[in-house]
């Protein structure tokens, strides 16, 4: 009984995770520039891979596997925002301008001061 519930739960988690991964990929294709693409990659991407790892933890029934899957989720949560931050900062530093222009740009004003 418990195993069946776990299997269904893991199935749902895998499907939702895969959906978010797909959406992240579509987002990277459709969004116009690096900054907006980082939004898709950092949020939907973390969600997708995180849910997949949690699905593994749910069906594993093995302490070591569960622990490693959960540690994986924590590392994803810690690292993917940092990489998004670094990529967008590096892009800004080398002068890659946002497509279509920005209405508000406090960073530009700050750097010119």
């Amino acid at each position, binding site marked *: 009984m418990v195993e069946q519930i776990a299997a269904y739960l893991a199935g749902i988690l895998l499907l939702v995770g895969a959906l*978010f991964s797909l*959406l992240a990929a*579509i*987002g990277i294709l*459709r*969004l*116009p*520039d690096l*900054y*907006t693409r*980082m*939004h*898709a990659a*950092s*949020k*939907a991407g*973390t*969600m997708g891979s*995180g849910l997949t790892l949690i699905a593994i933890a749910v069906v594993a029934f093995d*302490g*070591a596997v*569960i*622990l490693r899957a959960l540690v994986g989720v924590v590392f994803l*949560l*810690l690292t993917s*925002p*940092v990489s*998004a*931050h670094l990529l*967008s*900062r590096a892009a*800004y530093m080398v002068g890659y301008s*946002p497509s*279509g222009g*920005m*209405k*508000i*740009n*406090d*960073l*530009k004003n*700050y750097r010119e001061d």
Partner: protein
Amino acid sequence: MNFATLTVILALVWAAITGNFSVLNLLLGAAISVAALWFVRERVTTPTFFKKFRRVLALILIFFYELAHSATRVALLIMSPNLKKRLKPGIIAFPLTAKSDVEITLLANLITLTPGTLSVDVSADRKFIFVHAMEVPDKKALIRDIATGFEIKIIEVFK
């Protein structure tokens, strides 16, 4: 003796009694120790400990909630047919109240995982964090949301 040492000792005692030093059993022992110590909290701990524990827990819950929320919103935005029109990106300066490295790092990470915002840079004097947003309808409202949401919670945890 403080709460953390007591928990570790009791968890080890639990593992010794049950004769199983696996990670999972140690974690179970720690959980039981925390529950047991909670009953005698006035005698063994400073009153702030459980308050702090609750704040950390609240922060973690908000973190997961915001992640799910923002992922859904970004997903909806990506799939909207008139994507180009809906995008109104901008970079705003968010005035920092948080001071220490850990607080700023945590805040930057949480901002990246909030709906439509992405931290881009921290000013050299640590007064501002620059946030890229997908839609900026109201700059002041966005700053207020971050200041009264995550930042307060983070400062409370590290106070």
